[in-house]
């Protein structure tokens, strides 16, 4: 499989702050890659380097076989996190302008605009100024701008922020269709659930370094911790103090308990029956959200204890704390 995007030991510093630190990544053609990390992890900086909006201080980047995305910008679609529209231009003018900037012209451009507007149900808004659009419509329009020129590689930075569930579903469909058309997708998001459902592979970064990388299955199988899920009515709070419970997330209707290796789930079940009327009892692997919180949290602790060690040992340390 050919690689559409490769980063090799990429480093970017802003003054004394290292935003991205020897980061490497390979994205094969046709893959949907989830690019995850907390705020300030270096996701946007990495993406901007990929788009050659800023340049790395060290390391190599290859986009569609070229060292700079600026050489292949017409084949790459980018939806930035910080995105806006010209408020006084109509939907049609906006798409025409950006279409031209992405190398589309004449009849092909008109055809694509009609097609895309129909697909996101904005065809009736063509002659309206963008300031008249609702936030969700603006988001859809921005998505259309990113994919208007049918790019081979699409980079989406927080595409779901500010969208209602219906539009999130629509956008997911559209992203799926991009994939169907063999496009490669890099998806940066905070919404773990979306990432879990959409992505073939996940890369998690924190403070400019890669914490973990792999398919959902690979990542979850690395975390052998058992999560005990209880649902029903009752006082789940009392279960959190039982021996063998490492951490807990409790609401009035549900409890998610993290068990330590030696804990016996059936002992906890016995207690649970006493304090609540159960409707569900299940042992699970941690989900992406929990893995994310744990890895990032551990990474922070490592930093507090020992500054300036190797990124490899950092991941190892994160695993040890499991």
């Amino acid at each position: 499989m050919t690689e559409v995007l490769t980063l090799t030991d990429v480093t970017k510093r802003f003054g004394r702050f290292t935003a991205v630190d020897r980061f490497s990544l390979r994205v094969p053609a046709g893959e949907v890659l989830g690019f995850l990390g907390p705020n300030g992890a270096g996701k946007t900086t990495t993406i901007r380097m990929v788009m050659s909006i800023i340049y790395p201080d060290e390391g190599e980047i290859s986009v569609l076989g070229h060292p700079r995305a600026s050489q292949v910008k017409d084949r790459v679609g980018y939806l930035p996190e910080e995105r806006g529209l010209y408020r006084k231009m109509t939907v049609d003018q906006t798409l025409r302008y950006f279409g031209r900037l992405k190398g589309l012209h004449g009849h092909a451009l008109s055809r694509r605009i009609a097609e895309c507007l129909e697909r996101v149900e904005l065809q009736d808004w063509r002659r309206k100024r963008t300031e008249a659009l609702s936030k969700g419509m603006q988001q859809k329009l921005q998505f259309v701008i990113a994919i208007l020129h049918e790019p081979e590689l699409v980079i989406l930075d927080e595409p779901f922020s500010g969208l209602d569930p219906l539009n999130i579903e629509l956008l997911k469909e559209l992203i799926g269709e991009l994939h169907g058309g063999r496009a490669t997708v890099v998806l940066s998001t905070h919404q773990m659930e979306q990432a879990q459902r959409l992505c073939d592979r996940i890369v998690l970064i924190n403070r400019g370094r890669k914490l973990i990388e792999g398919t959902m299955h690979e990542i979850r199988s690395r975390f052998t911790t058992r999560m005990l899920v209880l649902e029903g009515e009752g006082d789940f709070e009392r279960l959190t103090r039982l021996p063998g419970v490492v951490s807990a997330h409790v609401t009035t209707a549900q409890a998610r308990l993290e068990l330590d290796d030696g804990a016996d789930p059936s002992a906890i079940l016995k207690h649970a029956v006493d304090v609540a009327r159960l409707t569900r009892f299940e042992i699970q692997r941690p989900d992406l959200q929990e893995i994310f919180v744990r890895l990032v949290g551990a990474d922070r602790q490592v930093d507090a204890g020992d500054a300036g060690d190797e990124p490899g040992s950092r991941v190892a340390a994160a695993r040890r704390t499991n």
Partner: protein
Amino acid sequence: MRKVVAVAVREFIETVKTKAFLVSALVMPLLVGGAVSGFGWISRSITAGELPPRRIAVVDYSGVVFGELARQCEAYNREHPRRQLLVAATAAADADTLAKTVREGEWHAYLIVPADVVDADTACEFGRKDIQFETGVQLQNMVNEAVFTARCRRTDPPIDPESVRELQRSAAIRTIDVQTGEEAGDEAARMVTPFVFMFLLFMATLGISNGLLTTVIEEKSSRVVEVLLSAISPLQLMAGKILGMAAVGLAMLSVWGGVGYASAHASGAGHLVTGYRVTYALLYFLPGFLLLSSLLAGIGSACNTIKDAQGMAFPLSLITIVPMFCWMYISQSPASTVSVALSFIPPMTPFVMILRVCADPHTPIWQIVASLALLWASVVVAMWASAKIFRVGVLMYGKPPSPRELFHWLRHA
């Protein structure tokens, strides 16, 4: 290049569509034209408009002035039937009494002529409460004439005042502009011509470049800039914007220039708009515009609010405005050391040079070539620096950078 043109076209259309542009390109020339003709109307009404008869009490202690003064008045009233000036000889009274009668409206004004007015320089006293420009001037002239006539009659033998006036008749002078071979016409129009050309250049460069500051900041604050950068490079974006704005500047220059040319022709000063002057205006417009606009694009990209940007652009505006203040000096002494020195301070160069070449067709060619070369060199430097700042600044939000940070961007971007 196609993308740069697309950016330029959008920039041009969106700017030309704005009210600010319509006002400055179309309404302003009309207003200026209106103001000029309005001024003409006002000045005509000052000297020829209708006024109620003004009755002036005259106390003539010399006994030789009033008769001639009354004759002068009659002559004036014959020419100005709608603004009569009436003088009446009044019995001797002190100034306070006369002032009271003027205050109470019995008389329009009073005039006391001292006994020795013909021999000594004792002042006449003119008491008035109005502010009519022409009343004072006319009365002054009439008193002068009357005293002059009295003096002529007192000499031995007496001189005929008319023959003296005949001798003092001014010599006629026809001024020819040797560049055009035509009659040079109005002195004042000749004097302000360099200023008019500089002002046009000023509006088309600084006025329009300031628009660039606004659009860059708008694109930043509306967060549209990163969407743009997904399709084009920062350099293409900046180049496109500058190109589009240059077209706006040219459009403005042609509208204003056209209106200016038409009104110059209408007022008989068309010969002052020479091909030579227009050529130099265009020759200095291009680099002048590119220099200011690239500097302002850089400044705009580093800031997030118009206020910050104007603060940062203030020193630049201050420098470019210098020729505005000393245009009179520069155009009157275009070859002086100061004028030549000012020609070589880049942001001022186009304005100072246009003043100088318009004022003096013999501006040394080496100075023109050198100033243009310097201007183009500074355009290259400014574009290089602004492109670097633009690349970093356009995605920076928050506090505007300090000069030290800007310098850092220049070195490391």
